[in-house]
């Protein structure tokens, strides 16, 4: 299966955001990944509604907002209003995860659960069921907060473990696995082989010369050899 490529806006030139997004769309990106940070759940601060709303006018790419915030429930309606299509919330912050996911779907968006490298996959037990309330799992392979970090040790094994859990309990194709953290053309094939279906890539695209070639190579990581 060819993976979807979701460039992460944070790694690009934020001073020329609209141009960068248009260029990514033209280069073959499937989804635009938006890292929303609140300076509380994670040490960094990024962007929010006005920026997302402005970007909605320049592209038709689906928006995938990764909420690294302590209180995601307070603003779900706003994310829908400004044009987000997917929302992921952290299993570490949601005390009523089913309710939050239900609300995201109710607002017409796809609901995802993000999980940090230090959190046991067992915390996804209640989500990985037939008829799951989630549409995707966002597996972090770095500790969220900053762009450009190193892939955590054991990351590939963790992807494979999640893949096996999803296939066994929910059935392949019902929940998708998105992987975020230090992915590039060099390790993308390993991640896809382990079971990643959506690749969030930041500097792995931004730091290369020809984005179109890079994105094509990332997608090609799904081909059998």
């Amino acid at each position: 299966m060819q993976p979807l490529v979701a460039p992460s806006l944070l790694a690009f030139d934020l001073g020329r955001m609209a141009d960068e997004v248009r260029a990514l769309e033209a280069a073959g990106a499937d989804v635009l990944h938006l890292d929303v940070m609140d300076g509380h759940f994670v040490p960094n601060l990024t962007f929010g509604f006005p920026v997302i709303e402005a970007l909605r006018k320049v592209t038709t790419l689906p928006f995938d907002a990764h909420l690294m915030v302590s209180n995601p429930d307070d603003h779900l309606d706003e994310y829908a209003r400004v044009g987000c299509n997917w929302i992921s919330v952290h299993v570490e912050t949601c005390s009523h995860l089913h309710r939050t996911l239900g609300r995201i779907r109710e607002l017409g968006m796809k609901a995802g659960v993000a999980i940090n490298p230090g959190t046991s996959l067992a915390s996804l037990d209640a989500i990985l069921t037939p008829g799951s309330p989630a549409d995707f799992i966002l597996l972090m392979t770095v500790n969220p907060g900053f762009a450009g970090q190193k892939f955590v040790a054991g990351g590939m094994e963790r992807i494979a473990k999640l893949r096996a859990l999803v296939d066994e309990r929910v059935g392949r194709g019902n929940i998708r696995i998105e992987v975020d953290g230090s992915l590039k053309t060099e390790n993308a094939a390993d991640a896809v082989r382990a079971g990643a279906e959506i690749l969030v890539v930041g500097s792995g695209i931004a730091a290369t010369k020809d984005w179109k070639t890079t994105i094509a190579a990332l997608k090609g990581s799904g081909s059998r050899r």
Partner: protein
Amino acid sequence: MPGVLRLVFMGTPAFAATILDGVIAAGIRPVLVVTQPARPAGRGRKEQPSAVAERAGALGLPCIAVENVNAPDVMERLAAAAPDIVLVAAFGQILKQPLLDLPKLHCLNVHGSLLPKYRGAAPVQRALWNGDEVTGITIQKMAGRLDTGDVLLQRTVAIEPDDDSETLLARLANVGAELAVESIYRIVSGRYVFVPQDPDQATYAAKLDKSDAPLDFQLPAQELHNRVRALVPWPVAETRLGSERLKIYATRVEPGPFPQPPGTLVTDGRRELTIVCGDARGLGLIEVQPENRKRMPVRDFLGGFRGQLPVESVG
């Protein structure tokens, strides 16, 4: 009720236009039609008025296109229309409580599923995606939370094996029009009951987007066939033939069994092209669209290669 029923109709795409037509055919002429503003659509993404705006224009009905139906100036206009009933079908905006409380009788909604199943934006697409054999239309009294309203009328509609979202939506729209008219009659004559939904049975139908288009040939053939149907007319299923994108509009399930690995192309070079799926059955392509070309039967597509496809497998 004395006098003429004052109906305000809210809707946007073709599904809603069909229901508007049905209401008018029954002799009920809305005092006001509300729709979404013109949006970029089609090739060239030129601004196009909604199907309902066009229909209302052709019928000479007063019609307003609004960005936010709950905004004070719109609310004023709606209050001036003094509706007995507000009928909402695929409008695309959420009505807030002051608006829900505005009509003398009720705000009614035509929803394309058997609620509480498939609440949300894409009930028809999700029913196809999941391979359901039956769906239907629900008329609900609109509530503060989306698609949680008490049910007035429901009718089931069979899903045909070759239905796609376009054909199924068109059929559901006709049933929706009949039920909308019947609901209005019942409410006006006072012969009706509202039945609450069972929240434990609720499921949500998230919108499809472009990311749902690529097919994963590890999945069983029937599931992929269902997805192809759900994805027409938008965003349309696709796969990659080498570096070229191939859109897939119509398929059938080939029983096989095929010994080749999933994604392998099996073809006689002339008429048939089948992609092997995860359950050793095949997805037989019927109609496709290669990149920068128009839609064509698979026979014409194969003709372009004189029997020699550039790749042996896809996905």
